């Protein structure tokens, strides 16, 4: 049980997909304009990760090694389609805000990376906890980045104005601001890691 819990926990801190593995940066850069978008993207990616990790771990013995990547993609695409259709039906506003980046989860390197590096070698239950941990780690990273960007770039948090008279720095709402924030956070976490050792 403790081992499974560690599988879950490593995705959040020790192997955080955004800040340690530095995977899945394209959706991170694109959707981290507001916290709502970040949470939506995070949940969608977590669901896909969870599903694809479980299924791939289940069918790992019948996938021929040479064509494993296309097989993974088919599985992932199935889950992405489910997410996209659900989102269109129940939250069209979020779907419009995330736009092309929902279907693009298919080629999200976190999902494919976990399938390739972990799920195809691990038992189902481990793959499940790995997918969940990675997904939550990705979501938390998105919330952190989008929180900073939304607060400093638009003066709001979750759509509410926090400080009256605060003049937001527009640049943080733009793509260049995303690169800046992610770069600074990456540096900060590396600094913490270095201090710890």
């Amino acid at each position: 049980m403790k081992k499974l819990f560690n599988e879950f926990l490593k995705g959040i801190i020790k192997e955080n997909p955004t800040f340690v593995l530095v995977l899945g940066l394209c959706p991170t850069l694109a959707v981290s304009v507001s916290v709502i978008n970040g949470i939506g993207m995070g949940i969608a990616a977590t669901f896909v990760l969870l599903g694809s990790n479980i299924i791939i771990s289940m069918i790992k013995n019948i996938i021929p090694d040479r064509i494993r990547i296309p097989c993974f993609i088919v599985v992932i695409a199935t889950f992405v389609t489910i997410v996209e259709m659900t989102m269109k039906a129940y939250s069209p506003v979020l779907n419009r805000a995330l736009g092309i980046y929902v279907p693009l989860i298919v080629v999200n390197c976190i999902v494919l990376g976990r399938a390739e590096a972990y799920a195809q070698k691990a038992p189902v239950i481990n793959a499940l906890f790995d997918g969940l941990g990675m997904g939550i780690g990705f979501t938390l990273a998105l919330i952190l980045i989008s929180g900073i960007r939304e607060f400093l770039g638009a003066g709001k948090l979750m759509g509410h104005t926090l400080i009256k008279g605060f003049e937001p720095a527009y640049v943080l709402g733009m793509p260049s601001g995303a690169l800046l924030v992610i770069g600074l956070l990456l540096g900060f976490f590396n600094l913490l890691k270095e201090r710890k050792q």
Partner: protein
Amino acid sequence: MKNRLIVSFPPHLHKDESVSKIMWMVVISLIPTGLAGVLIFGIDALWVIILGVISALLSEGILQLLGKRRVSILDGSAFITGLLLAYNLPPKVPFWLPIVGSFFSIAIGKLIFGGLGQNIFNPALVGRVFLMASWPKYMTTFSPPLSAGAGFIHPFDAVTSATPLAILKEGKSAEYISYLDLFLGKRGGCIGEVCILALLLGAIFLLIKGYISWHIPITFIFTTGVMTYVFGQKGLFSGDWLLHILCGGLILGAFFMATDCVTSPLTGRGQIIFGIGCGLITAVIRLWGGYPEGVSYAILMMNAATPLIDRYTRNRVYGVK
């Protein structure tokens, strides 16, 4: 600096100069410009300059203490960064704008790369571009120069006037300002860019003392002039090149920011390429770009190209093919 390699070519002559001394000399050369700015725009300009400089020094000191590095606020480089940043701001900006800009210049423009000598981009311009992208409203609201005789009391709180380049961009002619007024700085603009006379005084001082070489400024200004003359508004070879040279931040940028020894090429040939590149980009932005002024973006882009230029213009080592 981890290794104390001397990045130059033989013969290595010793001279009684240090980085710090050169920095303070550049500060001295910038004093007339500041005085002119305060005379032209009034006491507000002085506050912007003081705030910019003090916050640059404080940011550098505090960040170096936090990072447990040697505090080097007295070597003059942070002073220049704050000063140049303030010179790049309009005279009537909110008080926090120079503070935020100076902090960004020092933290992101300089210390993150490892401090003086390791930065890729000119720190003051990094700060200016950040402010420009973040608060364009304040960065492009220029107040007009004080009329003669009004002294330090401004009759209105908020009078705005467009810079000649912005007027030119909108397609109107800027005939109401004579070249002499442009030369003396009687126009709207940033604090340190308007008075060409004061800028040239400082530049000549630096050139005579040998702290900057002619390669970058002359090629930069010449290229911009030629480009704006050839691609004029009324057809080829009809552009008002003198207006383009006297307006905007061209003189300030060419003499004081493009020549920053950290972020410009080492050799003369490299510096000529650098200057021509700056001039081309400036002219392209002014003539066809979305902004009325492009000097700061041009210098930053060429800063990014500097390592490449240095690589291809390396001097031949004596005795080697």
